[in-house]
């Protein structure tokens, strides 16, 4: 078994582009582009709190069921892909079985900020206990 010991990986031909070979060996893909640039596990009820995260500068409880994420390092544009999941953990209510998660229609993403909303089965904003999110795209 071989081990590479390093603090940084930088592309030789292009600093921001390291290629990895696919599991099946038939394709190659950019390492940087496949990595999550932001992720978070948070409690969105009461005084909101972050359980664990990557590249998260802060989170803001904007209003009931509306959360704002601020990244430490910004993305290169506002076109990145962000996906979220949320639930109450109770497992037996409409609130947890119909989360209706969305990123906010009234707060479009910026390079370093995204706002998402959690809703119940009648599209009313509601706080969630278990919220997870990831961003994929290019860092600036």
């Amino acid at each position, binding site marked *: 078994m071989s*081990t590479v*010991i390093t603090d940084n990986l930088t592309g030789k031909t292009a600093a921001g582009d390291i290629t990895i070979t696919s599991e099946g060996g038939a394709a190659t893909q950019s390492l940087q582009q496949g990595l999550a640039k932001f992720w978070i596990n948070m409690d969105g009820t009461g005084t909101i709190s972050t359980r664990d995260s990557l590249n998260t500068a802060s989170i803001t409880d904007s209003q009931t069921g509306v959360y704002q994420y601020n990244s430490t390092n910004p993305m290169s544009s506002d076109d990145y892909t962000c996906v979220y999941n949320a639930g109450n953990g109770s497992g037996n209510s409409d609130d947890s079985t119909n989360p209706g998660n969305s990123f906010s229609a009234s707060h479009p993403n910026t390079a370093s900020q995204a706002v998402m909303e959690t809703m119940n089965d009648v599209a009313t904003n509601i706080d969630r206990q278990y919220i997870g999110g990831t961003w994929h795209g290019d860092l600036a």
Partner: protein
Amino acid sequence: MAGKIIADTIETGAGADISTSYVVNGSAKAWASWNGAGTLAVNDSLNLSSISDLGTGNYQMNFSSSLNNDDYAYNFTGNGRAESSRFLHSAMDYTVATGSLQMYWSGSLNSSWGVAYCDTNASLAVIHGDLA
């Protein structure tokens, strides 16, 4: 000539190590952000050759490089501003293939239960799994 490293493990100077299988297996194999309202437009993507607009709320991601099997993982988020009277709930009713992923986006009417397929002006998807 491009440099090449063949290794099983990457270790930081601080001694934390990770198997390169986590780097390869853990990397997203495709992601995309698109606007499905009107003429479909892709905002940004990885490993996406195209997105087909197959009908109301019905989109198909076509991958440039195929996945190794149809057991890969997919996550979605979006909003339903394309139909202002609906709030988007989720993507559902998937048709999964190694070279493509088809889904329907649905939303419910404001303040009343009634789910229906609807176009979105923001759909976001991330795919994890093994490439062929």
